[in-house]
């Protein structure tokens, strides 16, 4: 299935969850927040959030910046 992650198309295997996606992307879940189809998802729900074809995810973190 195909997702949009941070504005880019990405193919993942069926049965993927937010947790498996983060693992695949080598992202530490403790340093990010995830918006899934316009909704902010609590960290404890990553494992229980299955991904479907056409889903849109935004994975954000803290970056260098002042104003």
């Amino acid at each position, binding site marked *: 299935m195909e997702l949009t992650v941070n504005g880019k198309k990405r193919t993942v295997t069926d049965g993927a969850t937010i947790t498996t996606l983060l693992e695949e992307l080598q992202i530490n879940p403790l340093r990010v*927040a995830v918006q899934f189809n316009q909704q902010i998802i609590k960290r404890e729900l990553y494992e229980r959030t299955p991904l479907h074809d056409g889903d849109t995810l935004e994975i*954000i973190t803290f970056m260098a910046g002042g*104003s």
Partner: protein
Amino acid sequence: MVSESGVEHNVIENGGTLKFGGREFRSRLIVGTGKFPDYQTMQQAHEASGAEMVTVAVRRVNLDRTQESLLDFIDTARYALLPNTAGCYSAEEAIRTAMLAREVGLSDMVKLEVIGDQRTLFPDNEELLKATRALVKEGFVVLPYTNDDPIMAKKLEDAGAAVVMPLAAPIGSGLGIRNPYNIRIILEAAQVPIIVDAGVGTASDAAIAMELGCDGVLMNTAIACAKDPVAMATAMRHAMIAGRSAYLAGRIPKKLYASASSPLEGMIE
């Protein structure tokens, strides 16, 4: 640190602590994390500045993983994180960014920016006020970046802002405090801490902010883009202490004519 006299050095240096939103800081300086030549220099500059709070941007994770993570260079046990909504042009965008930032789980504070214009980066105060109200309701500790406008500062305070952050001059301009009289009026009316945010160019600008009676200063470019960021961070630390001390000491009034400091009696004839 406690000296022989039993007085805390840092507290004396900074003239009491900076308190808001249930937090207390010994340093009155908040430093940014952007524009440094590299993360090592940033880390050293943070250390040299004496700051206990740093501001960070909220952005998409870089999926290419070619960059190092900023968070590897900030000891979050030592520095409080102040996520900002830089780059947001509407209340909606800023609220969404703040909500995501809080979800990272490292801070419920937000340096709230709603920008109105790309060239000046001046705030859109109408949207800012809207976002402040919404985020206060959501339980955030809100630090809005605003103009040096006393009416707006009061409105933000009434909306529940924990701190109000008027600009000294446009972001990154280094022009220093353009309107010290407005800052004074803001300070006179304020019931919450006033932290000057943006426009500081060099140490004297920070000292002037503190001499006026501001509760703190937030800066990024002045340190990060100085020829020697670590040396400038040190200068800023001293400027903050000097300015705060001078404010507490109470300056002499300005006068038009001279007033001799040596006695007029006992002159040799």
